[in-house]
Protein backbone atom coordinates (compact mmCIF):
# COMPACT_ATOMS: atom_id res chain seq x y z
CA UNK A 1 0.00 0.00 0.00
CA UNK A 2 1.37 3.40 -0.95
CA UNK A 3 2.33 5.56 1.99
CA UNK A 4 0.30 8.72 2.34
CA UNK A 5 2.20 12.00 1.88
CA UNK A 6 2.94 14.00 5.01
CA UNK A 7 2.22 17.65 5.76
CA UNK A 8 5.60 18.17 7.42
CA UNK A 9 5.07 21.77 8.46
CA UNK A 10 1.60 20.88 9.71
CA UNK A 11 3.02 18.06 11.85
CA UNK A 12 5.25 20.48 13.72
CA UNK A 13 2.48 23.03 14.18
CA UNK A 14 0.03 20.40 15.43
CA UNK A 15 2.59 18.89 17.84
CA UNK A 16 3.19 22.27 19.44
CA UNK A 17 -0.52 23.13 19.68
CA UNK A 18 -1.43 19.69 21.04
CA UNK A 19 1.24 19.84 23.73
CA UNK A 20 -0.33 23.03 25.02
CA UNK A 21 -3.89 21.73 24.71
CA UNK A 22 -3.42 18.36 26.41
CA UNK A 23 -1.68 19.99 29.36
CA UNK A 24 -4.84 22.02 29.91
CA UNK A 25 -6.81 18.82 30.66
CA UNK A 26 -8.67 19.77 33.84
CA UNK A 27 -8.14 16.40 35.54
CA UNK A 28 -4.33 16.55 35.43
CA UNK A 29 -4.18 17.75 39.07
CA UNK A 30 -0.64 19.08 38.79
CA UNK A 31 0.69 16.34 36.57
CA UNK A 32 2.33 17.22 33.25
CA UNK A 33 2.17 15.37 29.95
CA UNK A 34 5.67 15.36 28.43
CA UNK A 35 6.60 15.14 24.77
CA UNK A 36 7.86 11.66 23.87
CA UNK A 37 9.26 11.23 27.34
CA UNK A 38 8.49 8.90 30.26
CA UNK A 39 10.39 8.32 33.46
CA UNK A 40 11.48 4.79 34.33
CA UNK A 41 8.60 4.04 36.65
CA UNK A 42 6.02 6.76 36.11
CA UNK A 43 4.94 9.59 33.89
CA UNK A 44 2.54 10.77 31.27
CA UNK A 45 3.81 11.05 27.71
CA UNK A 46 2.50 12.26 24.38
CA UNK A 47 3.80 10.28 21.41
CA UNK A 48 3.02 11.27 17.81
CA UNK A 49 3.03 8.14 15.68
CA UNK A 50 3.51 9.04 12.04
CA UNK A 51 3.20 12.77 11.45
CA UNK A 52 0.29 14.46 9.72
CA UNK A 53 -0.80 12.28 6.81
CA UNK A 54 -2.59 13.98 3.93
CA UNK A 55 -5.80 11.98 3.47
CA UNK A 56 -7.24 13.94 0.59
CA UNK A 57 -6.46 16.91 -1.60
CA UNK A 58 -9.07 18.91 -3.45
CA UNK A 59 -8.35 21.81 -5.75
CA UNK A 60 -11.17 24.12 -6.71
CA UNK A 61 -11.58 25.79 -10.08
CA UNK A 62 -10.19 28.99 -8.56
CA UNK A 63 -6.95 27.25 -7.54
CA UNK A 64 -8.00 27.03 -3.88
CA UNK A 65 -6.54 23.89 -2.33
CA UNK A 66 -8.13 22.05 0.59
CA UNK A 67 -6.17 19.28 2.32
CA UNK A 68 -7.71 16.90 4.84
CA UNK A 69 -5.00 15.67 7.19
CA UNK A 70 -4.86 13.18 10.05
CA UNK A 71 -2.35 13.33 12.89
CA UNK A 72 -2.41 10.13 14.98
CA UNK A 73 -0.90 10.12 18.45
CA UNK A 74 -0.78 8.10 21.64
CA UNK A 75 -0.85 9.18 25.24
CA UNK A 76 0.83 6.76 27.63
CA UNK A 77 0.32 6.65 31.37
CA UNK A 78 3.20 4.78 33.04
CA UNK A 79 2.73 3.64 36.62
CA UNK A 80 3.44 0.77 38.96
CA UNK A 81 -0.20 0.05 39.66
CA UNK A 82 -0.49 -2.63 42.30
CA UNK A 83 -4.21 -2.97 42.80
CA UNK A 84 -7.12 -3.49 40.49
CA UNK A 85 -8.56 -0.17 41.68
CA UNK A 86 -5.39 1.70 40.74
CA UNK A 87 -5.45 0.15 37.27
CA UNK A 88 -9.09 1.07 36.86
CA UNK A 89 -8.32 4.65 37.91
CA UNK A 90 -5.61 4.93 35.25
CA UNK A 91 -7.90 3.55 32.58
CA UNK A 92 -10.68 5.92 33.58
CA UNK A 93 -8.24 8.84 33.59
CA UNK A 94 -7.20 8.10 29.98
CA UNK A 95 -10.77 7.46 28.85
CA UNK A 96 -11.89 10.73 30.40
CA UNK A 97 -8.94 12.44 28.73
CA UNK A 98 -10.15 11.06 25.37
CA UNK A 99 -13.72 12.15 26.05
CA UNK A 100 -12.53 15.65 26.90
CA UNK A 101 -10.55 15.90 23.65
CA UNK A 102 -13.64 14.71 21.77
CA UNK A 103 -15.46 17.73 23.28
CA UNK A 104 -17.77 15.52 25.32
CA UNK A 105 -18.81 16.76 28.76
CA UNK A 106 -16.79 15.20 31.62
CA UNK A 107 -17.02 15.34 35.41
CA UNK A 108 -13.92 16.57 37.25
CA UNK A 109 -14.01 16.95 41.03
CA UNK A 110 -17.81 16.75 40.93
CA UNK A 111 -18.20 19.48 38.33
CA UNK A 112 -19.11 19.12 34.71
CA UNK A 113 -16.66 20.64 32.28
CA UNK A 114 -16.20 20.55 28.53
CA UNK A 115 -13.70 21.58 25.89
CA UNK A 116 -15.63 23.95 23.65
CA UNK A 117 -13.00 25.05 21.13
CA UNK A 118 -9.86 23.58 19.69
CA UNK A 119 -6.87 25.89 19.57
CA UNK A 120 -5.99 27.81 16.44
CA UNK A 121 -3.12 26.29 14.53
CA UNK A 122 -1.89 28.79 11.95
CA UNK A 123 -3.26 30.63 8.95
CA UNK A 124 -5.19 28.13 6.87
CA UNK A 125 -4.96 25.15 9.25
CA UNK A 126 -8.04 24.40 11.37
CA UNK A 127 -8.61 21.43 13.70
CA UNK A 128 -11.86 19.74 12.70
CA UNK A 129 -11.93 16.90 15.23
CA UNK A 130 -10.03 14.84 17.74
CA UNK A 131 -11.28 11.34 18.37
CA UNK A 132 -10.13 8.14 20.02
CA UNK A 133 -9.09 5.29 17.76
CA UNK A 134 -8.99 2.90 20.72
CA UNK A 135 -10.19 2.92 24.31
CA UNK A 136 -7.57 3.11 27.02
CA UNK A 137 -5.91 -0.27 27.50
CA UNK A 138 -2.87 -1.92 29.00
CA UNK A 139 -0.20 -1.75 26.33
CA UNK A 140 2.93 -3.08 28.08
CA UNK A 141 3.57 -4.75 31.44
CA UNK A 142 7.18 -4.87 32.64
CA UNK A 143 8.74 -7.44 34.98
CA UNK A 144 9.17 -4.90 37.79
CA UNK A 145 5.41 -4.28 37.87
CA UNK A 146 5.49 -1.07 35.90
CA UNK A 147 2.74 -0.83 33.31
CA UNK A 148 2.14 1.38 30.30
CA UNK A 149 -1.51 2.24 29.73
CA UNK A 150 -2.24 3.75 26.35
CA UNK A 151 -4.97 5.61 24.58
CA UNK A 152 -4.72 6.16 20.81
CA UNK A 153 -6.20 9.28 19.29
CA UNK A 154 -6.38 10.97 15.97
CA UNK A 155 -6.50 14.69 15.31
CA UNK A 156 -7.97 15.76 12.00
CA UNK A 157 -7.46 19.16 10.49
CA UNK A 158 -7.98 20.90 7.21
CA UNK A 159 -5.42 23.07 5.53
CA UNK A 160 -6.55 25.57 2.94
CA UNK A 161 -4.40 27.72 0.70
CA UNK A 162 -4.38 29.28 -2.74
CA UNK A 163 -1.98 28.13 -5.44
CA UNK A 164 0.21 30.83 -6.90
Amino acid at each position, binding site marked *: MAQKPIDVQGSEIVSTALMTLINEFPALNGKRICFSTLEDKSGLGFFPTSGAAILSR*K*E*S*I*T*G*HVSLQCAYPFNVIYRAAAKSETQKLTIKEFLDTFGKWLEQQPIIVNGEQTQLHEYPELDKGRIITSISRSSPAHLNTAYQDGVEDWLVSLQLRYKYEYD*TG
Partner: protein
Amino acid sequence: MYSYSRIERKYLAHYIDETFGDKEYVWLGDDLEEYDDELSPDVEIETNTLGEQNIKHNGYEAEGDVEPYYAEYGSRLFRELSAIANDRKKGEACNTTKIDVLLKEDMTIVWAYREDVTVIPDGIGGDTSGVQIPFKIYGRGNRVKGVFDISTKTFKPINTVYAYNGEILISNNTAYADRVIV
Protein backbone atom coordinates in the same frame (compact mmCIF):
# COMPACT_ATOMS: atom_id res chain seq x y z
CA MET B 1 9.76 26.48 -30.74
CA TYR B 2 6.39 27.00 -29.11
CA SER B 3 5.54 24.40 -26.53
CA TYR B 4 1.92 23.40 -26.04
CA SER B 5 0.72 22.84 -22.54
CA ARG B 6 -2.64 22.39 -20.91
CA ILE B 7 -4.25 25.45 -19.45
CA GLU B 8 -4.77 25.09 -15.72
CA ARG B 9 -8.46 25.26 -14.81
CA LYS B 10 -7.96 28.21 -12.49
CA TYR B 11 -7.15 30.43 -15.49
CA LEU B 12 -10.73 30.15 -16.76
CA ALA B 13 -12.49 32.33 -14.22
CA HIS B 14 -16.20 32.94 -13.77
CA TYR B 15 -17.31 36.14 -12.09
CA ILE B 16 -20.84 36.95 -11.03
CA ASP B 17 -22.36 40.29 -10.10
CA GLU B 18 -23.11 39.49 -6.48
CA THR B 19 -25.20 42.65 -6.03
CA PHE B 20 -27.63 41.66 -8.78
CA GLY B 21 -27.34 44.99 -10.54
CA ASP B 22 -24.51 47.18 -9.27
CA LYS B 23 -21.86 45.28 -11.25
CA GLU B 24 -19.72 44.23 -8.32
CA TYR B 25 -18.19 41.00 -9.44
CA VAL B 26 -16.99 38.13 -7.29
CA TRP B 27 -14.92 35.15 -8.47
CA LEU B 28 -17.04 32.01 -8.30
CA GLY B 29 -15.87 28.58 -7.37
CA ASP B 30 -13.76 28.33 -4.19
CA ASP B 31 -15.90 25.32 -3.26
CA LEU B 32 -16.14 23.83 -6.73
CA GLU B 33 -13.88 21.14 -8.10
CA GLU B 34 -15.67 21.42 -11.41
CA TYR B 35 -17.89 23.95 -13.15
CA ASP B 36 -19.17 23.88 -16.70
CA ASP B 37 -21.25 26.28 -18.67
CA GLU B 38 -23.38 23.54 -20.20
CA LEU B 39 -24.42 24.92 -23.57
CA SER B 40 -27.18 22.34 -24.21
CA PRO B 41 -27.41 23.07 -27.94
CA ASP B 42 -30.85 22.66 -29.47
CA VAL B 43 -30.11 20.61 -32.58
CA GLU B 44 -32.55 18.81 -34.86
CA ILE B 45 -31.16 16.34 -37.38
CA GLU B 46 -33.33 15.32 -40.30
CA THR B 47 -32.28 12.74 -42.85
CA ASN B 48 -33.89 12.92 -46.27
CA THR B 49 -34.60 10.05 -48.67
CA LEU B 50 -31.15 10.44 -50.21
CA GLY B 51 -29.54 9.88 -46.83
CA GLU B 52 -28.42 13.47 -46.58
CA GLN B 53 -28.61 15.07 -43.22
CA ASN B 54 -30.16 18.43 -42.64
CA ILE B 55 -29.03 19.95 -39.39
CA LYS B 56 -31.17 22.61 -37.82
CA HIS B 57 -29.42 24.39 -34.99
CA ASN B 58 -31.82 26.53 -32.97
CA GLY B 59 -29.31 27.95 -30.51
CA TYR B 60 -28.21 27.18 -26.97
CA GLU B 61 -29.76 26.89 -23.54
CA ALA B 62 -26.72 27.64 -21.40
CA GLU B 63 -26.80 26.53 -17.80
CA GLY B 64 -24.25 26.11 -15.02
CA ASP B 65 -24.54 24.23 -11.72
CA VAL B 66 -22.87 25.77 -8.67
CA GLU B 67 -22.90 22.95 -6.16
CA PRO B 68 -21.66 22.96 -3.49
CA TYR B 69 -21.80 26.60 -2.51
CA TYR B 70 -21.08 27.15 1.19
CA ALA B 71 -22.71 30.08 2.93
CA GLU B 72 -20.42 32.59 4.64
CA TYR B 73 -21.36 35.59 6.71
CA GLY B 74 -20.03 38.69 5.01
CA SER B 75 -20.64 37.33 1.53
CA ARG B 76 -22.94 39.60 -0.45
CA LEU B 77 -23.70 36.77 -2.83
CA PHE B 78 -24.91 34.61 0.07
CA ARG B 79 -27.10 37.47 1.32
CA GLU B 80 -28.71 37.88 -2.09
CA LEU B 81 -29.12 34.13 -2.63
CA SER B 82 -30.69 33.61 0.77
CA ALA B 83 -33.06 36.55 0.14
CA ILE B 84 -34.16 34.94 -3.13
CA ALA B 85 -34.62 31.57 -1.45
CA ASN B 86 -36.31 32.81 1.73
CA ASP B 87 -38.68 35.23 0.01
CA ARG B 88 -39.28 32.80 -2.85
CA LYS B 89 -38.37 35.59 -5.26
CA LYS B 90 -38.66 35.09 -8.98
CA GLY B 91 -38.43 37.05 -12.21
CA GLU B 92 -36.32 40.23 -12.29
CA ALA B 93 -35.10 39.74 -8.74
CA CYS B 94 -33.07 36.73 -9.86
CA ASN B 95 -31.39 38.47 -12.79
CA THR B 96 -27.75 39.47 -12.77
CA THR B 97 -24.71 39.23 -15.06
CA LYS B 98 -21.81 36.81 -15.32
CA ILE B 99 -18.38 37.29 -16.82
CA ASP B 100 -16.24 34.46 -18.17
CA VAL B 101 -12.55 35.29 -18.44
CA LEU B 102 -9.64 33.28 -19.80
CA LEU B 103 -6.35 34.41 -18.32
CA LYS B 104 -2.72 33.74 -19.04
CA GLU B 105 -0.28 32.83 -16.28
CA ASP B 106 0.87 36.47 -16.14
CA MET B 107 -2.80 37.33 -15.49
CA THR B 108 -3.28 39.09 -18.80
CA ILE B 109 -6.66 38.53 -20.42
CA VAL B 110 -7.00 36.22 -23.41
CA TRP B 111 -10.72 36.89 -23.76
CA ALA B 112 -13.64 38.02 -21.66
CA TYR B 113 -17.38 37.75 -22.21
CA ARG B 114 -20.27 39.10 -20.22
CA GLU B 115 -23.75 37.60 -20.31
CA ASP B 116 -27.10 38.27 -18.71
CA VAL B 117 -28.02 35.41 -16.41
CA THR B 118 -30.72 34.29 -14.03
CA VAL B 119 -29.64 32.76 -10.75
CA ILE B 120 -31.98 30.35 -8.99
CA PRO B 121 -31.10 28.64 -5.71
CA ASP B 122 -31.84 24.91 -5.52
CA GLY B 123 -32.17 24.81 -1.73
CA ILE B 124 -30.66 25.67 1.62
CA GLY B 125 -29.22 23.12 4.00
CA GLY B 126 -26.63 20.46 3.42
CA ASP B 127 -24.69 18.11 5.67
CA THR B 128 -22.55 18.81 8.72
CA SER B 129 -19.77 20.30 6.60
CA GLY B 130 -21.63 23.63 6.61
CA VAL B 131 -24.70 25.48 5.40
CA GLN B 132 -24.99 25.19 1.66
CA ILE B 133 -27.08 27.09 -0.83
CA PRO B 134 -26.41 25.51 -4.21
CA PHE B 135 -27.73 27.34 -7.24
CA LYS B 136 -28.02 27.22 -11.00
CA ILE B 137 -27.03 29.90 -13.44
CA TYR B 138 -29.18 30.15 -16.55
CA GLY B 139 -27.90 32.15 -19.51
CA ARG B 140 -30.31 34.78 -20.86
CA GLY B 141 -28.24 35.93 -23.82
CA ASN B 142 -26.84 39.38 -24.58
CA ARG B 143 -23.40 37.80 -24.46
CA VAL B 144 -20.85 40.43 -25.35
CA LYS B 145 -17.09 40.32 -25.74
CA GLY B 146 -15.15 42.85 -23.77
CA VAL B 147 -12.15 43.92 -21.78
CA PHE B 148 -11.93 42.86 -18.15
CA ASP B 149 -9.76 44.57 -15.57
CA ILE B 150 -8.94 41.89 -13.03
CA SER B 151 -7.77 44.33 -10.35
CA THR B 152 -10.91 46.49 -10.38
CA LYS B 153 -13.16 43.69 -11.66
CA THR B 154 -14.71 45.98 -14.23
CA PHE B 155 -15.85 44.99 -17.69
CA LYS B 156 -16.05 47.13 -20.79
CA PRO B 157 -17.71 45.70 -23.88
CA ILE B 158 -15.76 45.87 -27.10
CA ASN B 159 -18.06 47.66 -29.49
CA THR B 160 -17.99 47.40 -33.21
CA VAL B 161 -19.60 50.12 -35.32
CA TYR B 162 -20.61 49.11 -38.83
CA ALA B 163 -21.53 51.23 -41.80
CA TYR B 164 -24.70 50.39 -43.74
CA ASN B 165 -22.59 48.58 -46.32
CA GLY B 166 -21.14 46.33 -43.64
CA GLU B 167 -17.81 48.08 -43.49
CA ILE B 168 -16.34 48.18 -39.98
CA LEU B 169 -16.00 51.82 -38.99
CA ILE B 170 -14.82 51.33 -35.40
CA SER B 171 -13.58 48.08 -33.91
CA ASN B 172 -12.21 47.17 -30.51
CA ASN B 173 -13.82 50.27 -29.13
CA THR B 174 -14.45 50.31 -25.40
CA ALA B 175 -15.50 53.94 -25.14
CA TYR B 176 -19.22 53.24 -25.22
CA ALA B 177 -20.41 51.71 -22.03
CA ASP B 178 -22.47 48.55 -21.93
CA ARG B 179 -23.94 48.49 -25.43
CA VAL B 180 -22.95 46.66 -28.55
CA ILE B 181 -23.64 48.93 -31.48
CA VAL B 182 -24.39 47.01 -34.60
